[in-house]
């Protein structure tokens, strides 16, 4: 069904970005403008986009057909016809709903967080652009448009991570994110091209591809599925392309929240779900995705247990949760994976915003062992943070429990006991490290009595809304076993997810097991950290605290070798061979020119002679050719 509204979901945040950018240029060039102006533009535009999405959501809910909007023909060459067209099916609207909603809350939060920053206007311009890019990605009707958004979020993450660009570390982190993502993007492009040719050039929109998937050969499907997943690895920070995510913490906290909750990292999951027809038809690649997800989940969780930077712990926990989502979508349980994306958006945004509130209150202190000595009087942040920690640990009835448990049950049902076991172990670790964070920051004794009057409403208001979401979002997909309607599963029925069908006894047993490991994790964390003497921080030695030396290995393997190669090209190939050849030619021309210059001797008689000789030669030529005929 055609609708004129889809484009406005994208255009309004984009308009916000343009307005903010324009006003910001005016602000720095001519006259100072109040922060309020930027804040209003920055926060109202995502909200309008959210209202548009909500409207479409209700229409879809009333049984309307999938929305689409044809804008213009972009390319039409041979069989390749790329239309600028937006698609608002249930999956896209589902994603767009929480992207705009959580995004909007993060925008509000950013108003309080960025207060007094020189680049306030610029920040909101980037922020709105980020949201607009993500919405292009979500509402795309074909992979090429999806790729525009895909690159857009890449650029915006780069701009935002290195937002305080005067600090060299931030710039390095931005570069790292951009370059690692480039590796993934190459995979994505190659994947789309492979798929297009594998389908015999029958069409590039998602609908056409889905309709023709049967004509492609299995090998090519595996190849294109793998290449597309390489793109997802980069964007969604999975092993081995995850290294940018922890470093991305260099940016201001609202950016971390936006990247981790609403945009960017969820793009990979969304893309896999978009290509569900491809991944459903080749099981090998789905299993591969699930294993990569499991490895990432446990790997990140292990690293997170020994990190000391509050934001890095959260970053690794995001990577770990993304691993869960990939287990879900890899095994064909698309709706479960996306449901985890959905609940995760709430509690992870809340955790980041809470962490940001603490960091701001403690004058940009990020080490959890140093925080403890200063925390007091952060009641709202403390309470919401606790809700987030419980939600992510998987304690019912908080939202994280339902979504995570569905994925673990899925792995168990498919007979992937290894993945299930890894998932259970990760659930234990998750509960452990999240409560370690909570206990050390908010519970452990030895806090100074220094007070902080921190009552900025823009910081606490989004936190409270998200807390409600983190508690109750799980009920949106209340499993049938408890008499729920499993709304998300029904809503995303067109993805043809694999269904859970196991006896109630098994289901209860699995739930009990996952609650048990979570409680065990909390207990271990309580024993160790509830009364932790924060004046003696943990050592930063050891394999885990050093993140398994992956950065160092990558540095040696890729960065240094590429540097050596470039140096070779610079010093040997360029200077000696290329410059040498060119200089040889140059010197030849110069000496030839000098010889030629002798005839320009300013002697008018010689010039007359040259003219005569030239005219004679031309005449002779004409004469000969005329005679020749």
């Amino acid at each position, binding site marked *: 069904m055609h609708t004129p509204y889809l484009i406005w979901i994208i255009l309004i945040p984009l308009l916000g970005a343009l307005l903010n950018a324009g006003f910001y240029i005016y602000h720095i060039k001519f006259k100072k403008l109040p922060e309020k102006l930027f804040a209003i533009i920055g926060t109202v535009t995502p909200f309008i986009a959210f209202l548009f999405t909500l409207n479409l959501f209700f229409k879809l809910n009333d049984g309307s057909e999938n929305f689409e909007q044809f804008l213009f023909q972009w390319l039409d060459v041979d069989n390749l016809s790329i239309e600028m067209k937006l698609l608002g099916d249930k999956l896209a609207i589902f994603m767009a709903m929480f992207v705009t909603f959580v995004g909007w809350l993060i925008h509000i939060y950013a108003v309080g967080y960025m207060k007094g920053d020189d680049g306030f206007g610029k920040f909101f311009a980037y922020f709105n652009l980020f949201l607009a890019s993500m919405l292009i990605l979500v509402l795309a009707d074909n992979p090429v448009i999806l790729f525009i958004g895909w690159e857009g979020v890449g650029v915006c993450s780069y701009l935002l991570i290195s937002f305080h660009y005067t600090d060299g570390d931030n710039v390095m982190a931005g570069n790292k994110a951009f370059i690692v993502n480039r590796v993934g993007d190459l995979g994505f492009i190659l994947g789309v091209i492979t798929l297009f040719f594998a389908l015999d050039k029958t069409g590039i929109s998602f609908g056409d591809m889905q309709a023709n998937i049967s004509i492609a050969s299995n090998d090519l499907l595996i190849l294109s599925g793998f290449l597309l997943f390489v793109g997802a690895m980069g964007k969604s920070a999975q092993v081995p392309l995850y290294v940018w995510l922890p470093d991305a913490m260099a940016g201001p906290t609202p950016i971390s929240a936006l990247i981790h909750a609403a945009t960017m990292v969820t793009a990979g999951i969304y893309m896999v779900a978009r290509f569900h027809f491809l991944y459903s038809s080749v099981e090998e690649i789905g299993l591969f995705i699930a294993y990569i997800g499991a490895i990432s989940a446990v790997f990140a969780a292990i690293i997170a247990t020994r990190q000391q930077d509050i934001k890095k712990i959260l970053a690794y926990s995001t990577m770990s949760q993304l691993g869960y989502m990939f287990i879900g979508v890899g095994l064909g349980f698309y709706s479960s994976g996306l449901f985890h994306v959905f609940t995760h958006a709430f509690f992870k945004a809340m955790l980041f915003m809470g962490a940001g509130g603490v960091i701001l209150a403690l004058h940009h202190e990020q080490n959890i062992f140093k925080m403890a000595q200063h925390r007091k009087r952060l009641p709202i942040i403390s309470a919401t943070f606790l809700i987030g920690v419980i939600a992510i640990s998987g304690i019912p009835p908080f939202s994280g429990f339902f979504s995570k448990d569905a994925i673990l049950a899925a792995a168990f049902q498919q007979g992937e006991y290894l993945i299930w076991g890894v998932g259970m172990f990760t659930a234990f670790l998750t509960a452990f490290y999240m409560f370690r964070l909570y206990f050390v920051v908010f519970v452990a004794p030895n806090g100074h009595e220094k007070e902080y009057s921190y009552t900025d409403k823009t910081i606490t208001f989004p936190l409270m809304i998200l807390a409600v979401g983190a508690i109750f979002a799980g009920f949106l997909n209340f499993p049938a076993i408890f008499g729920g309607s499993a709304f998300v599963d029904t809503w995303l029925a067109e993805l043809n997810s694999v269904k859970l069908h196991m006896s109630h006894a098994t289901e209860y047993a699995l739930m009990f097991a996952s609650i048990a490991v979570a409680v065990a994790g909390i207990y271990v964390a309580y024993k160790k950290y509830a009364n932790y003497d924060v004046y003696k921080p943990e050592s930063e030695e050891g394999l885990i605290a050093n993140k398994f030396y992956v950065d160092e290995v990558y540095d040696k393997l890729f960065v240094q070798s590429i540097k050596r190669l470039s140096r070779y090209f610079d010093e040997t190939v360029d200077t000696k061979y290329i410059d040498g050849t060119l200089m040889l030619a140059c010197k030849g021309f110069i000496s030839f020119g*000098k010889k030629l*210059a*002798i005839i*320009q*001797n*300013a*002697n*008018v*008689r010689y010039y*007359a*002679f040259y003219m*005569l000789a030239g005219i004679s030669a031309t005449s002779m030529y004409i004469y000969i050719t005329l005679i020749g005929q």
Partner: protein
Amino acid sequence: MTSLTGYAAVSMILFSLGAIGVVSRRNVFIIYMSIELMLNGINLFLVTFARYHFNMDGQILSIMVIAIAAAEAAIFLSVIILLFKTKKSLDTNVFTELKQETE
């Protein structure tokens, strides 16, 4: 036909003498005279063929050439005077300001 060949030969000799004069002589006056010689060689050609074809176009053109040569004479002589004023010489080898300097 012999008469035509004769006229043509004379005009060619005149033109060639003028051309050789322009190339080989160094005195500006002589060069000027040589140029006039070339023009007259061409004039003779034009008149000859005009007569041969009974067509007056060539004669008109030759009158034009003579008129322009007269105008040119006025300019050329004044240029020669200016040249002489600057260098006190009429030798063309002296006027080499536009030479490409080679190391």
